[in-house]
């Protein structure tokens, strides 16, 4: 198993604990791409003269395609049974995953086109690649998830795996007898109203999307640690 983040944030690395982790950025992927295509000297010259900036400005989507290409190469290497990628947020995930298709329309030859074709093949093969959408049991995240799910299926043609819903708190309502201390009552009423929102939004999600759901429980902490993640994972087994 390999965990990959795409923007150099330290978060994922600390959450997966001892599992192998890779941080992948577009400039690194582009430099590596040029080198593996026998353009090492050129890559240096391009970088030194700032032309790499211009190439990625002139051909938007190149950034995304070299990153997707690197993921495809990792997948093809057979070194990992599973590669889990922490992808971009909702709207940008669509742009990111559409990069291959977008480039095919403009690039009619050369190694980038081959790369784009390979990436499209991977994205379109449910045995090789699935997208797991992650959300919270609240109104806006659920709306966004549903929109993203339709856009990904229709425009990218990628197989959607189960939906993961984080931070679910659906315990039974706390009883608040008459005469309860005001602080205790206010805290209980707050908790009950949060649980009510969660139940309602889970129902709405179920109605809107015919995908399996994986519910992860609400953890009382402001910042998850690798231990918390291990416990959540154990709960799924």
């Amino acid at each position, binding site marked *: 198993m390999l965990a990959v983040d795409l923007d150099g944030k330290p978060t994922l690395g600390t959450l997966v604990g001892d599992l192998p982790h890779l941080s992948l950025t577009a400039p690194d992927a582009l430099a590596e791409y040029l080198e593996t295509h026998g353009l090492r000297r050129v890559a240096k010259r391009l970088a030194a003269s700032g032309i790499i900036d211009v190439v990625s400005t002139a051909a*938007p989507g190149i950034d995304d395609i070299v990153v997707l290409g690197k993921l495809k190469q990792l997948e093809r290497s057979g070194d990992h049974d599973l590669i889990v990628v922490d992808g971009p947020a909702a709207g940008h995930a669509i742009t990111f995953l559409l990069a291959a298709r977008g480039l095919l329309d403009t*690039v009619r030859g050369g190694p980038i086109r081959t790369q784009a074709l390979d990436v499209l093949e991977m994205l379109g093969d449910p045995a090789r690649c699935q997208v797991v959408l992650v959300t919270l049991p609240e109104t806006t*995240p659920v709306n966004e998830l549903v929109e993203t799910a339709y856009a990904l299926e229709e425009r990218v043609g990628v197989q959607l795996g189960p939906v993961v819903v984080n931070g679910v708190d659906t315990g039974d309502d706390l009883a608040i007898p008459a005469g309860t201390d005001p*602080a205790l009552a206010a805290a209980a009423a707050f908790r009950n109203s949060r649980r009510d929102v969660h139940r309602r939004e889970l129902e709405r999600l179920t109605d809107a999307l015919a995908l399996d759901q994986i519910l992860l429980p609400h953890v009382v902490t402001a910042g998850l640690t690798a231990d918390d993640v291990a416990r959540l994972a154990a709960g799924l087994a």
Partner: protein
Amino acid sequence: MSTTAPDSPTGRADLGDLAAALAGAQVVVCCGSGGVGKTTTAAVLGLELARRGQRVVVVTIDPAKRLADALGLTGGLTNEPARLDLDLPPGSRGELWATMLDTAATFDGLVRANAPTAEQAERILSNRFYRNIAGALSGTQEYMAAERLHALHRDDRFDVVVVDTPPTRNALDFLEAPGTLARFLDHPLFKLLMMPTRRGMKVLNVAAQPVLRTIGKVVGGDVLADAIAFFQAFDGMETGFRDRADAVMTLLRSDVTRFVLVAAPQRDTIDEARYFASRLASSSLSVAALVVNRSTPTFGTPTVARTRANAALWANLDELVATSEAEHAQLGDLVRDVDPAPVCWVPMLSSDVHDQSGLDEIRRLLFGPEPGNG
């Protein structure tokens, strides 16, 4: 139900501090990572400024339709600002408008406005390379957001533009995009591509130059040919674009622009907010205010002892207090990073904001019950 924000050792703004931080602003940029209620905050700031008698437009460049959700607009938003019905005091000149960036339409408009002739505009608009970059592909969106910000800022209909940016990494592109565009136009490669028309050379000859051959190997020869045709069609328009890019950078760096950082009390969002604060600092820009959304409220101290009968209620309160304390501890570094900017806590509400009365509830938490007469 009480939803007072905690009195916090890590800094809590007085009501009025946020209003003071926004006084005199013509541009308010809300930045932060995804899922922290940034769009809602942008809408709330717009609402408050409108209540203070300003004519405000809120613009989202997020491809997800969050602003429409927060404003309760089921029909969604378009590139053309739409005015919202507000319940304002009689005689108030305040207005609230909302719009969503349509990247391709904005780019098309920019080309038409800058092209010396309709024929040249048409040549660009029909170029395959142009159609590709004018669409949804990454990068262009940030250029056009800056362009849109500039246009709305100059629009006589509005006193203030409130911008809701995409999640952090892209928001940085947004700040840097005008600079990127200017650099692009200044670049020797661009000049090289522009030369041939003046010398009467054919595109093929240009493509045969060694440096372009190399680029062609990477991106494909066809892309290069399209790009060259695009740049040649672009000839003479770069000054207009460059002036625009300079004007946007000047606007973003001027004292009429305020950056409001939005975070939630979870570690990953705080890490991103700190990263963002440091990038602003490295561009010599400062954070005008920090808004912390979705914090766990406090409920006061019970006056009853723990008994078997109230054990579950005590356990619930203990959990919420522990969460709140952990949140404040996590935010300490960020609060220090943005010092002396006011820090405004918005407690997690009992339900999601999905209409204007929900926005108004948050507005009162941030600014107090009612603003002074604007």
